[in-house]
């Protein structure tokens, strides 16, 4: 298996400054994103997966405090790149699909104008007519019928599913090396979700870049991803190729997440499985294993922090038991 690395995240830590002190949103995250692969980031709300996606784009919020570590795109550390150059990378080498298609398009411009706009970083030499033609073809590719009419339409005239297709078309038109999809189906109903998943799956075949799929849905991740990283409280606790991770999970948190999936075989009225407790305080981070407080199989050694170690080829887990 050819595992040429496109993005290498090394020991990335990100703090947000808050009134109560520094919030350690990402702590010592290391992750590699291979070329032409789909990597899933999964975890509960607040685990830092969206922050990791924003860090890749260089769009961390204004209240970001200290950032350390490296994000290497083809060996170049994105954290050192000057803002103006980083801006050119966005919409060129890196693009993003946002969560809510209902609000991610500018209401005052037509779809065509926005699709043309999206390509200007990638193809500054092309004129409006050529860019419109490319937009037209891309709309066809993402499964929008009658593209000429849609190009003239305004966002409010399209349905949610169609808008998400437009967002996907917009990101693909940038021909990015790396496409970040932040919960791309969360705001859609299930039938549309299935369509979008199928679309992403189809596009994967002829899309030349890597995709980072951020989601809390294990089903979506298992469907689309080659590799998965499970995040908890700002750390990657387990990472592996999808089949291995779902077949042989080695971290108690991954096991707990899998157990939380709703099983249709359950009797009605049966209590849903949850993980007891809540996320730890990320301002005053507890010592030792970050998951210990909620872990059913903790033991004496958990007062020390377990490193993320390879437990088998390509499979890493941060647990003393793994």
């Amino acid at each position, binding site marked *: 298996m050819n595992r040429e690395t496109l993005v290498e995240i090394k020991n990335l830590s990100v703090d947000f400054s808050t009134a109560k002190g520094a919030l350690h949103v990402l702590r010592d995250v290391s992750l590699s994103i291979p070329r032409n692969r789909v990597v899933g980031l999964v975890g509960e709300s607040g685990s830092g997966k969206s922050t990791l996606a924003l860090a890749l*784009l260089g*769009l961390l919020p204004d209240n970001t405090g200290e950032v350390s570590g490296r994000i290497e795109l083809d060996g170049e550390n994105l954290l050192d790149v000057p803002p103006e150059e980083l*801006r*050119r*990378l*966005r*919409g*060129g080498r890196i*693009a*993003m699909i*946002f*969560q*809510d298609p209902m*609000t*991610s*398009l*500018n*209401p*005052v*411009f037509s779809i065509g104008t926005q699709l043309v*706009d*999206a390509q200007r*970083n990638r193809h500054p030499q092309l004129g409006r007519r050529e860019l419109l033609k490319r937009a037209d073809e891309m709309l066809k590719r993402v499964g929008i019928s009658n593209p000429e009419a849609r190009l003239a339409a305004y966002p409010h005239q399209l349905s949610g599913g169609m808008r998400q297709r437009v*967002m996907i078309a*917009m*990101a693909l038109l*940038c021909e990015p090396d790396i496409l970040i999809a932040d919960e791309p189906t969360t705001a859609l109903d299930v039938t549309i979700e299935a369509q979008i998943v199928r679309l992403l799956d189809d596009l994967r075949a002829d899309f030349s870049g890597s995709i980072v799929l951020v989601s809390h849905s294990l089903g979506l991740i298992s469907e689309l991803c080659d590799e998965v990283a499970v995040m908890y409280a700002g750390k990657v606790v387990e990472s592996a190729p999808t089949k291995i991770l779902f077949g042989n999970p080695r971290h108690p948190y991954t096991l707990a997440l899998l157990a939380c999936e709703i099983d249709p075989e359950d009797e009605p009225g049966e209590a849903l499985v949850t993980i007891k407790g809540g996320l730890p305080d990320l301002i005053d981070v507890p010592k030792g294993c970050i998951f210990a407080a909620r872990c059913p199989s903790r033991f004496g050694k958990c007062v020390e922090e377990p490193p993320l170690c390879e437990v088998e080829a390509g499979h890493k887990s941060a647990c003393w038991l793994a």
Partner: protein
Amino acid sequence: MGLLRRIWASPSGRLGMVATLLVILGGVAAPLIATHMPNQLDVAARLTPPSGAHWLGTDHLGRDLFSRALFGTRIAVGVALAVTATALVAGILLGVTAATAPPVIERTILAAFDIVSSFPSLILALALVAVLGPGLLNIIILVTVVFVPQFGRVARAQTLAVKERPFVEAERALGASGGRILAFHILPNIVGPIVVLASMNIPVVITLEAGLSFLGVGIRPPLASWGTMLFDGFTYLEQSVWPVLVAGGSLTLATLGFTLFGEALRDALDPKLRREP
């Protein structure tokens, strides 16, 4: 065109539109319609009631009231448009700057807005006249100063709301620069409410200018202004009621027209009030 049709659809909007059009047309075509020169004296016919020679009568110097009212429209509407346009542009500039600049600049701009709007507008205008002196250009400048804060505040509030909307971040993720986001994504999304505010502002400026001219610190005679006409008429009220009626009537027609038009415009632009055809 859909917008004008929606304004036309409401009775008060129709009234406002007709009155506004009458006033604007009267001002634009004043030299063509006017039967006399606005400052032409006819001492033999002072303070006459309407007649064939003077359709709306004459004032205390025998000047034709109809013609003076028409030329007064130019002053009133001209000042109102100039003030509103300048205040709108300055307000947007300051408001958007306040919303996007570092806190020190934001606080300075907001403090300036607070100072200006803490005075009643007529009092502030009078104080500024005392500094700048009367005259057409000075009136435009000082009335603009009075009206900048309301545009600035709305522009700032709108910008703050729009810049947090997801499409702005989506745009940033596609590599748009800060200036581009301001010009292409924030501005078009904030102008709607500001334009409505501007249309409602026009009648307020018209009355303020007339008020200043009435008090003798605005437009200087012999320039025909409704405010000065009103004052002259007021002085000779016991001899003829016509000068006051003509000046007051013009003022009423213009302010009522612009107000109704502005309200209809606001309703027409509000999608929640829009009736589906």
